[in-house]
């Protein structure tokens, strides 16, 4: 099924029976557990385009099937961007919310949950619900958008997403500090203590990258002031950030959240790793996910390797997740197999 409007989407969900798999661009199909074969596959690729965009308000409403890249293109024309830079180039906005995916900009801007200000979602029974709105500050009602972050299509089908946007920085400069994981923790502290305000601070396989964004004179000054850093040319910087994105291309890739200072312990499990060092969010290729899970609980498997269970021991909030799933999709129509063995 490939609905082209909210009404068609609603009808597609409401008027069918049986299980449903939501599919965006298909860039994260294997994340969070391989889905079982379903009666229907619901593609969001027909739900594309900007709904409203008024640059002076610095918000944009888009249909969930719109690729982020397309949104970025439109915003760039007005000197703006969504401050989200996941590795998956073709991913749709809805898919990024559902997978709670983000890239190095999470250092300064957080992830989808921090940029999302409104959603429209179609529930398993065809109910259409909105929450949030079109303004950046809003506490009216529950924030269902946040709930859908990391829901992997198991709670509802995202139809529309409203995001806050930021001005495109006039200039940017990346600095590289070659170091090991333990030193990266210390360097991170130094960069932060020096109040250099990087937009991204990422350690990737032996190199700490600090990206500064802002007015030109300032980014250059900050780059020069970075303790132990070498200023990279634009081309070298692009290559370095491509290496960061490429960590996700491995066979068995996981994302893991820990205290930032635990980076060395996490890195010990990795064959390749990139980490937002001030945040404590790591993306890594691993050989043995169970060993990692034995040490760290907040692990999500990205990339599907047969035979590897997507989730480990249920953590304290899993019973609540089940209760939420039960209320939103009591028949278990949406994304069966995802979150196995938790669901």
């Amino acid at each position, binding site marked *: 099924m490939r609905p082209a409007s909210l009404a068609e989407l609603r009808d597609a969900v409401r008027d069918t029976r049986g299980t449903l798999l939501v599919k965006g661009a298909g860039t994260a199909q294997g994340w969070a557990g391989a889905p079982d074969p379903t009666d229907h596959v619901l593609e969001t690729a027909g739900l594309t385009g900007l709904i409203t965009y008024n640059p002076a308000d610095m918000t944009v409403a888009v249909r969930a099937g719109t690729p982020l890249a397309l949104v970025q293109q439109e915003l760039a024309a007005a000197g703006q961007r969504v401050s989200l830079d996941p590795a998956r180039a073709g991913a749709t906005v809805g898919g990024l919310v559902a997978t709670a995916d983000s890239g190095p900009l999470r250092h300064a801007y957080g992830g989808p949950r*921090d940029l999302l200000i409104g959603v429209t979602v179609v529930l398993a029974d065809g109910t259409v619900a909105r929450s949030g709105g079109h*303004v950046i500050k809003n506490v*009216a009602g529950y924030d269902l958008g946040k709930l859908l972050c990391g829901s992997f299509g198991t709670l509802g089908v995202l139809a529309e997403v409203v995001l806050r946007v930021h001005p495109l920085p006039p200039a940017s400069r990346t600095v590289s500090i070659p170091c090991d994981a333990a030193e990266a923790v210390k360097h991170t502290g130094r960069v932060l203590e020096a*109040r250099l305000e990087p937009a991204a601070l990422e350690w990737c396989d032996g190199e700490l990258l600090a990206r500064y964004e802002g007015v030109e004179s300032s980014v250059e000054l900050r780059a020069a002031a970075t303790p132990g850093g070498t200023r990279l040319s634009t081309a070298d910087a692009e290559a370095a950030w491509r290496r960061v994105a490429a960590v996700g291309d491995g066979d068995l890739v996981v994302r893991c959240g820990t205290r930032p200072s635990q980076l060395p312990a996490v890195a010990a499990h990795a064959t390749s790793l990139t980490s937002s060092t001030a945040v*404590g969010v790591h993306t890594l290729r691993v050989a043995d996910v169970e060993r990692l899970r034995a040490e760290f609980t907040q692990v999500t498997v990205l990339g599907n390797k047969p035979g590897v269970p997507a989730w480990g021991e249920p953590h304290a909030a899993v019973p*609540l997740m089940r209760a939420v799933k*039960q209320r939103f999709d009591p028949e278990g129509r949406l994304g069966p197999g995802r979150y196995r063995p938790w669901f």
Partner: protein
Amino acid sequence: MSLTDLRDQLAARLGRDGIVTDPAHLRTYECDALTGYRVVPALVALPRNAAEVAAAVAACARFKVPFVARGAGTGLSGGALPVADGVVISLQRLRRVLEVDPVDRRATVEPGVTNLDISRAAAKYGLYYSPDPSSQQVCTIGGNVAENSGGAHCLKYGFTVNHILAVDVVLPDGTTTRLGADAPHQAGFDLLGAFVGTEGTLGIVTGVVVRLLHTPATVRTLVANFDSTKDAGDAVTAVIAAGIVPAAIEMMDNLAIQAVNATVDAGFDPDTAAALIVELDGPADEVEARFADLTRLCAKATEVTIARDAEHRAKIWQGRKAAFAAVGRLSPNYFVQDGVVPRTRLGEALTRIAEMGEQAGIRVANVFHAGDGNLHPLVLYSEERGEHERAEALSTAIAELCVELGGSLSGEHGIGTDKACSMPRMFSEDDLATMRRLRAAFDPEGLCNPGKVFPTPRLCGERPGPYRPHPLEAAGVIERL
């Protein structure tokens, strides 16, 4: 099983000085900072630690008695309003800062710790807790989590929800859990994000892990005077549109300035129609460059004063933050409204509000977070002169105007009791029913702060306000099916 049994059990668990039962004493808990709503609870519990909170909740669950968490009682939407025959669970004895970790830049605190005390505890490491509601010296972090509180500096740095790593929660059945984790990556749904801002209706927070930031390298603050609130509003729109993200942009109109000047000597011009406080912070060079742009964008300002030093800046903020309460000097009674409009419609909103006030014959003072479009019109009236109803109607009309302009009923104070009946203006029945599913997942029995956020027939009359097409729907921005 009765309330008496519940009281005896709580007394046994919390001790005699852990509960309040005397009628006069109970009445001191009958309202929060929104005094228009008052309900005397059956009992107040004053637990000393998380285990006692859990025990109190478990007892309420056993007896099926509703309960309401209470922080400092500074809420402005009646969120901590007690339930008749229910229990108030005060978190004011859970006030320890358990850990400040300068390496991983976080603090672990009990829910009754004030917002400002977190920053005080972090100060020796050059760190601070960023969201800064004007009430920060008194409001608790538990209340902040419940309301997803904002503040002047949230424009650049984000709201409470963006700064909480984890919370320990006593669920409405008395069991405990942790939402969130050591880093903003959780295996599973973002239950933490969904929990923050639910106004105490999903459980009671007994522990909070917050992110700490380094204090900025440089701070520059200016106060710009304008001939009209419209000019000031337009300046805000221009600054935002120019791609500057100030740490804060706040506006005060003449009435608000008068009130502030009576409280704090911050040097605000008593004759100006409106003043903007704009603050930039960050790396020195960045700030200097942007500051020049900023001064240029305030071209219509009649006067621009730049804060001389940290002390002057502190005074400016002290004045701004005292504004709500200082309005008590201008008027015996007032409502604090809290609506949001898109930032391009600030000037328009202010003009409309002034007109509405004039029509109603009621003074409206404005002091608000202009950069977010978060208005706080203060509707001044006198109970004695019998203006209550007119003022209340005006205040409600202003909130609904915000929705009409494409904004929201509340930017930071919450829906609580106050605006529950206006919710159908913003959300359809399906929207609200979907939110209730989340509530039911946490609180199937409906014992945790019932009657807040969602319209109920009891509060709003038989039929909660009729659904009218959402303005965005009317404008074709959203479709309602």
